[in-house]
Every structure is written in structure tokens, then in C-alpha cells.
């Protein structure tokens, strides 16, 4: 007879709380530094102003709107501020924390900015207050929920109404959207059973669809657009390679100069809530993040993609979620499914929407992790079609369009796969 009792302490980790916080602050600091290096400060400040007043529904590349320097500073400052919020609430840094902060950082290159995110957070805070609960309990829903931030910007700066009405409309839309998210996010999880990693993206897609339907029936129909910059590879490629190689090296050193634990991470299916930092510790997770970053960057390079705001967002989101669900083993089949789609469908892998579909489509990685690579390829193949046509429902106001599409794909595919094939683990 063996008996074990009590909860494990946080002292079991190779890297303490301070180290993980430092990592997130360093990441934000690096983004700010790249921004300061890219353009003169005065130029970046003008660019930052342009970013803040831009109606920034999909796809609005901030490199195109305000320049590289301003985009990096916007992303870096948001990263620092969101990390500071975690520290303020004394929240232990886990995989979900890293995923949330990296997702904010990534989307701060094409839709989230220093102005529009706070109204969503305010709405979630208001919900917590209404429920007499601590905001801490809803903090990740609030962080991921900033995917609806373009609602705020569009109403504040995209309507032809007197300024006070526009501002009030933006504030009300942002706060009300944030208020709706917490109660919906939990119930939408059961729709896809955690096989769509960007769950709040699925929820936000539903909320965005509701809002846009209301707007449309009042005569407001936003025009689709693609603001997409090119010619940034020279700066971004070395930066990304340096960043991901450093992650691998740091993880290796912190892990006692070994790759111990990495095989366990790769053996994990990755279904929500696969918190790799909590379950397997930070150093092997950091190695996994670096490797997935290299994989995503290499893919983009091979298909002749553009390194710009949106694709940088895609890469950072892949890297962030490599602390919570994504591994090279489960994202490769999804990307392969998108590549397969290019052989039978009428688009090219270098098309902007398809570049994003391949990167963000890895939201479906748990399908490959759980049911095998064939199911993963099928999911990627189907997703690359669905994601192109569901954006019209929320008019690009939900930045996690792939999370929305991924939720629909998972909700359809998973029950079918389970019915006809069963799980590989059984």
C-alpha cells in the first residue's frame, strides 16, 4: 500500500516565478527595443497615433498603418502591461499565461492596440463585479477576449457620426462585448470539447456575428479589406531566428543541459487544457516553443510568405500556444492539410489569408495529437476552406477568425472521427 497526500508546491519547478515573469518582461522589452531600432522615436509616435485611430478589423497590418517601429512599440508595451497585470494579481505564470501574453503580443501587430483592448477588459471586469467574483477568475477570458477590440476602434473611428456619439458607441460596444464573454466562453468549450485551442476566438466569433448582424440591419455594412505590407523579411527573419534559437538554448541550459521532458510534451495530445509549464515544467516547454517558432518561420519562408504584422502575429501565437497544447508533432499535420488544399483548391499558399490559415489553423493541433496525423491533415484541409468564408459573418471584427472557424471544424469533425475511427489512445 502506498499513500501520497497534499498538493505539490511551486518550489518543484526548475525555474521559479521570478524567472518566468522575467521571461515575459524580456519578451516585451525586446519588442520595444526592436521598435526603437526600426524607426526614429518621433516617427514611431506619429505611427502609433495612426494605429490608435485606425478602424482595424481584419486584415489591418499595423506595419502598413503606422510603420514597423510603431507596431513593435505597440506590441511591446501591451506585452509589458498585460504581464504587469498578471504580476499585480499575483498569478502564477503557467502555460496559459504565456499563451495569453504571446497572443496579445502577436495580435498587437494587426488589431489590438494601446487604446482598444481596455474596453473589453473593462467589460469582463464589470461582469466579475456583477457576479461578486474576483476579476482574477476571468482574467484569461479577458486577455483572449481582446480579440473583439476592433469593434471598439471601428465604432469610434469608422462611423460618420458626431464625435461624442462615435466614442460612446465604441465604449458601449467594447464593454458590452467583454461583459458577454465570460458566461459564453465556458459553454462554447463543450461545443468543440477543447479540440480548438483558440476557444475564446470561437466564442468571440459568435459574439461578433451577433453584433455585426445588428449593425448590418441598421444599414452599417463594413467593407472587406486587406492591408498587407511586404518587404520586411530583412529585419524580421534574423530577429525571429535569433529569438527562437535563444529560447531553445536557454531552455536547454535551464533544463540541466538536456532535452529531458521534451518527449513527454510531444507525446501529449495537446487538447485543452494542456498546460505544459504546469505539467512538464518551464525549460522543456521553452525548447518546445523555440522549435515550433522555427517550424512556423521555416514554413513561411519555404512558401514564399511575407513577414509582416499579421504573419508575425501568427508565429507568436503558435509559439505562445506551444506552452499550452502545440507541439511539432501535432501542428505539422494541420499545416500539411493546408498545403494539400493548395493542390486541389483555387488559391495559392502565398495568398495572405492562406498564410494566416496555415499558421493560425494550428488551433486544431489537438485533433492531430489525439486522433493521429491523418485526422490532422483532414482537419487542416477542411479548415483552410472554412476559414475563408466565415469571416464575413463577423466582418473581421473578431481577430481570431481562425479560432472561430476552428471551433466549427472541430465541432463537426471530432464527433465524426470518434464515431468512425475511435481514439488512437484507446
Amino acid at each position, binding site marked *: 500500500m*502506498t*499513500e501520497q*497526500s497534499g*498538493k*505539490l508546491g511551486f518550489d518543484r519547478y526548475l525555474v521559479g516565478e521570478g524567472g518566468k515573469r522575467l521571461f515575459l518582461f524580456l519578451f516585451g522589452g525586446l519588442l520595444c527595443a526592436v521598435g526603437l531600432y526600426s524607426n526614429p522615436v518621433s516617427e514611431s509616435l506619429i505611427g502609433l497615433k495612426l494605429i490608435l485611430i485606425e478602424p482595424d478589423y481584419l486584415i489591418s497590418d499595423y506595419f502598413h498603418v503606422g510603420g514597423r517601429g510603431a507596431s513593435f512599440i505597440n506590441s511591446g508595451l501591451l506585452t509589458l502591461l498585460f504581464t504587469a497585470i498578471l504580476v499585480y494579481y499575483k498569478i502564477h505564470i503557467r502555460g496559459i499565461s504565456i499563451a495569453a501574453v504571446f497572443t496579445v503580443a502577436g495580435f498587437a501587430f494587426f488589431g489590438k492596440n494601446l487604446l482598444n483592448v481596455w474596453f473589453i477588459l473593462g467589460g469582463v471586469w464589470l461582469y466579475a463585479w456583477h457576479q461578486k*467574483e474576483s476579476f482574477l477568475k476571468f482574467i484569461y477570458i479577458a486577455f483572449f477576449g481582446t480579440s473583439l477590440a476592433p469593434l471598439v476602434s471601428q465604432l469610434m473611428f469608422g462611423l460618420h457620426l458626431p464625435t461624442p456619439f462615435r466614442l460612446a458607441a465604441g465604449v458601449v460596444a467594447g464593454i458590452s462585448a467583454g461583459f458577454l464573454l465570460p458566461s459564453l466562453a465556458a459553454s462554447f468549450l463543450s461545443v468543440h470539447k477543447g479540440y480548438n485551442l483558440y476557444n475564446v476566438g470561437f466564442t468571440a466569433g459568435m459574439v461578433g456575428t451577433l453584433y455585426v448582424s445588428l449593425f448590418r440591419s441598421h444599414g452599417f455594412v463594413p467593407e472587406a479589406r486587406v492591408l498587407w505590407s511586404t518587404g520586411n523579411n530583412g529585419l524580421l527573419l534574423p530577429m525571429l531566428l535569433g529569438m527562437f534559437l535563444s529560447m531553445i538554448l536557454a531552455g536547454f541550459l535551464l533544463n540541466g543541459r538536456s532535452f529531458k521532458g521534451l518527449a513527454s510534451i510531444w507525446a501529449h495530445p495537446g*487538447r485543452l487544457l494542456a498546460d505544459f509549464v504546469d505539467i512538464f515544467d518551464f525549460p522543456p516547454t521553452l525548447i518546445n516553443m523555440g522549435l515550433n517558432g522555427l517550424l512556423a518561420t521555416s514554413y513561411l519562408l519555404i512558401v514564399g510568405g511575407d513577414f509582416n504584422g499579421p504573419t508575425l502575429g501568427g508565429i507568436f501565437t503558435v509559439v505562445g500556444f506551444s506552452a499550452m497544447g502545440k507541439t511539432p508533432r501535432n501542428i505539422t499535420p494541420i499545416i500539411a492539410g493546408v498545403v494539400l488544399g493548395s493542390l486541389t483548391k483555387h488559391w495559392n499558399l502565398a495568398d495572405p489569408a492562406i498564410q494566416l490559415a496555415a499558421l493560425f489553423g494550428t488551433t486544431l493541433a489537438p485533433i492531430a495529437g489525439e486522433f493521429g496525423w491523418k485526422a490532422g491533415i483532414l482537419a487542416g484541409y477542411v479548415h483552410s476552406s472554412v476559414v475563408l468564408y466565415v469571416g464575413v459573418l463577423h466582418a473581421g471584427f473578431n481577430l481570431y477568425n481562425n479560432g472561430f472557424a476552428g471551433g466549427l471544424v472541430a465541432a463537426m469533425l471530432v464527433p465524426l472521427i470518434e464515431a468512425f475511427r475511435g481514439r488512437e489512445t484507446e
Partner: protein
Amino acid sequence: MKYEQLVVSRIVSELMNFFFSMGAHDFSTHVLRDEKGFEICVESDYSGNPSSKIREMTRLLRMPRAREMEEYSWSLSGDISTGQEIYLVGIMTDDVTVEHDEEAGRVRISLTRLLE
């Protein structure tokens, strides 16, 4: 949390799914509720030699409670069981004791979930 009773029933369901997936034929549960919270006791047999799975289950059940993740993740538990969801049970409970009798092929788990 608003859905305390539902969370507890999901925890029981999760553990039941887990032990059924390990070939259990005799699973019993006992839940005590008072003003402080819930005490969940589970006892089950299993088939075969799943020692490594029991060790991993114990490790995941011993994960410290994470209140900041509950609203985001509680509805995932008790749905389908691949073994990894035991982590969710771990982060939704405050204390745990796992007794494993290898000779008899039985496991007894006591979990505590405190209210605010």
C-alpha cells in the same frame, strides 16, 4: 464560483471515466458537503498493470489549485476521458490523498474542494 455543484459532479464524472478506461468493475463515490466545501471520496478497482498511469494520475491530482483557470476550463472536465483531464481535477481541488493498494488492485482517492 457560481457552478460549484456542477464542478463537483464533473470531478466525480472525470474520475469515473478515468477508472472505467482502466477496466474498473467496481467504482464507488461518496461526496460530503458542508459550509466550507466538498469532500469527495472515490474508490475503484482496475484491470491489468497500470502502475505508471496511476503514478501519473497521482502527480496530476497533486497539482495545486488554480482559481484563475477555473472559469476558463471547468466545463472541459467530465466530458471525455483520455487521462489528461485529470490535470483539471488537480487544479480544481485544494487537497488530495491517494492510497494505492497494488496487491488488491484498488485505489482510494480523497479530494477536498473549498468554497471561497
